[in-house]
């Protein structure tokens, strides 16, 4: 009915957060960034990879919205969602957003978190290897 709305709302939040982080990153002093890079905390890694999450959520929501259009659940005229025409359908639409939609958003977020954690460990390992080579040299 309109399950893509839950990931779409999360996509908006993730994009806003990602933009804020980018502005903060460019406004920080270069020395601060280097110092931060040395610390390279897992938390910072998650914050810096917010763009992956927003790309996933926007892309997925767009393709799902197309699927809903295909099935005639979205119309180009008001109220845009065919389920919004009757009150009984509105209830089941919100029920679907709350169950299927939230599950979709949660699954994508969980996979993103896993990807970021793996990339953090890979980057950390690569840094350690580089440091070891430097020390040997």
């Amino acid at each position: 009915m309109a399950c893509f709305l839950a990931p779409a709302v999360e996509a908006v939040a993730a994009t806003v957060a990602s933009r804020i982080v980018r502005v903060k990153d460019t406004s920080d002093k270069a020395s601060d960034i280097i110092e931060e890079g040395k610390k390279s905390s897992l938390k910072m890694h998650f914050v810096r990879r917010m763009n992956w999450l927003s790309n996933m959520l926007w892309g997925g929501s767009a393709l799902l919205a197309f699927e809903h259009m295909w099935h005639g659940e979205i119309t180009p005229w008001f109220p845009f969602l065919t389920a919004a025409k009757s009150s009984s359908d509105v209830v089941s639409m919100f029920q679907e957003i709350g169950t299927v939609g939230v599950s979709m958003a949660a699954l994508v977020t969980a996979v993103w978190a896993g990807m970021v954690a793996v990339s953090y460990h890979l980057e950390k390992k690569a840094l350690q290897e580089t440091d070891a080579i430097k020390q040997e040299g």
Partner: protein
Amino acid sequence: MTLLISVISAVVTTIIWYLKDCGNQMKLGTLSLMYWAASLMWMADAVFEYVELQAEYFKPAAADMLNDAFLGVAVVTLGLVIWLVMVLVKDPKGNIRRAIRENKFNQNS
């Protein structure tokens, strides 16, 4: 069928990204993230549908399967169109900017 087609396109895009575009210059990583996310969302949808229909979920009517396959191909095509627009707008290789500059230079001289 839509889920299957989107997973296949996600796998293929990821392999091409790994082999040809690891720096994500051509934004193939973004395209693969888009297909993976859509696949995950359809997977969640499929789980709910399976809970509701049980074994019947795996016995779709031929007409439904054909429609779903057609939808899957359309979704993959839409993903490619979004990716193409993104690449043309960002112009990572600078070809469009260079062509515009050369065109302006030729008009002025």
